[in-house]
């Protein structure tokens, strides 16, 4: 096996923050290499440097032994290095095919675009992924899962020999995530080098050959994953070692003490009654005060429509929502619907609430800063500097900021919280913090609806899990009196419901 890509002690500084410091990385052909670490550890920056998107301040990158020069994405792509980013880089208005060939259009004579050739190439890429995507479909009609498949197809389309994926399984169901790794293994066996940025230790132990752990911009360790006929051997020991490197923390199991809700006598705060809108086909759901309900589903089964109706952004064609308390929403796409990335953390922390701070002589700047400081502090946002632009925060910290803002509003306990993918792309520590805050809110009297494809998360966090498929609620799993899940709540059984045919 040969080293396909090597990063040699690269540094990258953003303003006062050293995002990556003296980090080295070697990706070998035929192997799946995981890069793990908590939010802000520098994983994404290192991945961006390796793929030419970000030019390092110090150090350089070699592709198949040759120095990447100039250090640009174009040069990297030309040498067969591709990246699938956590936040998709697709053009909504174009078709799947147009997006796949964007920047890599095959041409015939006189520079005419060879659409047929491109279609054949795309279909080959889709077949390798086992993805069923209509090349003519507009990207705007695709769910998050399909968008991600398209992103991967796009990299294959460019005939990448080194593929870097940033948090690829964040939005996938367990089955889809497993299928993705099967695909990645096949791509590796074909002689490609694969790197996956993730913070899911189980994925690393199940699928990776090598793992690099990062903490605070530095590479802490690089080890081989030892496995014994598929499963990692000494799993517990290996996991402990990784967690120790990443967090100085040997206890991963996220356990939150749920409030004793879900009992029948607390008041119903949110009623969703036979809602029809787009994909939604008569969705029905009730959430009580002090109750956390998980809505499990594969993306594109009506979740977006449901959230839009609850947010008042869309009128249902049939049915109604009865809300008996103020509704606070956290949308799944934090970069488009959560934050104004170019504005300061302070502006984002109180986005849409300036009315509260405006007096006769204009805005009370001091009060805004104090409130923003408080929210940033309560939400555990790092770095806790409210003057930085929100774009300077890592993905996980951006999410913490969005959640902190939602939770800080209407502090008066009785409210409805709708949280779409609240911990998507967020590391274990941050996820645990977010979970704790959600539970605190429920304890204080909130009715909470969590939409997620991550069944493990829902099983930890929720009193009750409802499965949504094709716009309908098709199943429910409950806990018994002792808080144990009934037997219909296994990942396999819930997962089967999530992908059930119509």
């Amino acid at each position: 096996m040969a080293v396909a890509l090597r990063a040699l002690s690269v540094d990258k500084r953003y303003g006062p923050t050293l995002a990556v410091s003296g980090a080295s990385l070697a990706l070998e052909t035929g192997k799946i290499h995981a890069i793990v670490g908590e939010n802000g550890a520098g994983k994404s920056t290192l991945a961006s440097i390796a793929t030419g998107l970000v030019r390092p301040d110090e150090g350089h990158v070699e592709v198949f032994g040759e120095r990447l020069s100039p250090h640009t994405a174009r040069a990297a792509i030309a040498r067969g290095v591709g990246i699938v980013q956590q936040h998709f880089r697709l053009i909504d208005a174009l078709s799947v095919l147009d997006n796949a060939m964007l920047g890599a259009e095959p041409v015939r004579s006189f520079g005419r675009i060879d659409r047929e050739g491109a279609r054949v190439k795309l279909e080959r890429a889709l077949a390798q992924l086992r993805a069923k995507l209509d090349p003519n479909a507009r990207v705007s009609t695709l769910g998050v899962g399909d968008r991600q498949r398209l992103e991967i197809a796009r990299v294959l389309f460019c005939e990448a020999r080194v593929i870097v994926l940033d948090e690829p399984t964040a939005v996938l169901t367990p089955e889809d995530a497993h299928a993705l790794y099967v695909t990645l293994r096949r791509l590796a066996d074909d002689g490609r080098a694969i790197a996956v940025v993730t913070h899911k230790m189980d994925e690393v132990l199940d699928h990776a050959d090598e793992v690099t752990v990062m903490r605070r911009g530095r590479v802490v360790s690089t080890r081989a994953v030892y496995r014994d006929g598929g499963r990692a051997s000494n799993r517990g020991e290996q996991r402990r070692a990784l967690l120790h490197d990443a967090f100085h923390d040997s206890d991963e199991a996220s356990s939150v003490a749920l409030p004793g809700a879900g009992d029948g006598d607390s008041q119903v705060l949110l009623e969703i009654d036979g809602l029809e809108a787009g994909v939604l086909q008569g969705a029905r759901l009730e959430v009580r005060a002090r109750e956390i309900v998980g809505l499990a589903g594969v993306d594109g089964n009506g979740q977006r429509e449901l959230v839009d109706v609850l947010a008042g952004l869309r009128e249902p064609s049939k049915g109604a929502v009865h809300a008996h308390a103020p509704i606070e929403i956290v949308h799944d796409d934090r970069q488009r619907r959560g934050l104004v990335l170019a504005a300061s953390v302070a502006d984002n922390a109180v986005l849409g609430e300036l009315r509260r701070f405006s007096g006769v002589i204009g805005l009370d700047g001091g009060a805004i800063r104090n409130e923003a400081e408080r929210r940033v502090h309560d939400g555990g946002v790092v770095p806790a500097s409210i003057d930085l632009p929100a774009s300077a925060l890592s993905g996980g910290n951006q999410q913490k900021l969005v959640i902190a803002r939602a939770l800080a509003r209407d502090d008066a306990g009785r409210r409805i919280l709708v949280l779409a993918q609240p911990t998507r792309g967020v590391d274990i520590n941050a996820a645990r913090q977010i979970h704790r805050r959600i539970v605190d809110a429920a304890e204080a009297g909130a009715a909470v609806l969590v939409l997620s494809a991550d069944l493990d998360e829902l099983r930890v966090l929720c009193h009750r899990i409802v499965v949504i498929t094709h716009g309908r609620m098709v199943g429910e799993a409950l806990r018994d009196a002792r808080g144990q899940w009934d037997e219909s709540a296994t990942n396999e059984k819930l997962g089967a419901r999530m992908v059930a045919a119509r």
Partner: protein
Amino acid sequence: MSARTATRLALEADIWTIAAGTAVAQIAFATLVWLYGDSPRAMTMLMVEGTWGSAYGIGQVMFKATPLLFTGLAVHVGLRAGLFNVGAEGQLAVASLAVGAIGAWLPASTPALVAVPLLVVVAGCVGASWAAPAALLRAVGAHEVISTILLNRVAAALVGLLLGLGLAQKGAVRTPDVVPHARLARLDRLIPSFEGSAVSTAVLIGVATVAITLWILPRSRAGREQELVAKNDEACFVEGIPVAWRRAQALLVSGALAGLASLGTVLGYKGYYEQGLGAGAGFAGLAVAILGRGRLLGIVFAALLFGTLAQGGLAINAHVPAEVMEVIQGVVIVAVALGDARIRSWLTSKLVVLGAR
């Protein structure tokens, strides 16, 4: 980073932009004069003497810069809300006509304390009203660049029509003189060495307007939300910010500020409105806004730079055509615009949209 460091860095950036703008203008000027076959050095000397070389010249530069302070500020208010108000030209023309006509219609004995504030309100309201159709159309999705450009043409035609229909003095294409107390004092009354130059107290009103507006914008809810809307309208909409209204507001304020430029031309200079008075100030405002980058010092300097070019063109007119100065204005605009991140991102977004079709 401390607040003081931030202020210092911003000031440094201001000075660099100013230096770059001046340098580009100087290089373009020298090249053009050389191509024309004259001596760049002699012409530069002549231009400097005609502008910053005497109190009269300085007064004239300030006079030329006066309307640009208002229009530059007007365009900036739009830009920070993500809108390109190309209609300052038309907004100014219509407001100028209204100020001239109403200023002449007032009883001759109207005291200054009534006449001037009243005409300021008229200028602002009429300027805003001319931006209103564009604001309304933006709310339903029509692009403000197109609508404001078209409204410029409508304004030009309307002004001519109304002058012809009776707002003009008999036998002339201008309004009657405004009442005496509505006129703004020439600065040479206060500082005798400005003798003969047309600079008036309107320039002081202009600088004050720029300073006050720039101070208020980030300290008011509307102003702050306008800026957020420019950066991500979807997130703002989801969080309950009235996106369409904030945009409309910004365009209306922009129109009002453009209308206020008539203080310099009608009340500070001629004392009446004639067709073409103040023409070009609206478009030059685009350049001032881009070069001024939303900073007091920047806008004042940019207005003075373009004022210098306009006045300098007159000073060298005997040797080199004054149109040379228009070419230089264009060169400065292009150079500075390409250096401005806001314009670059705006252009990029347009190119992506065009490319996607």
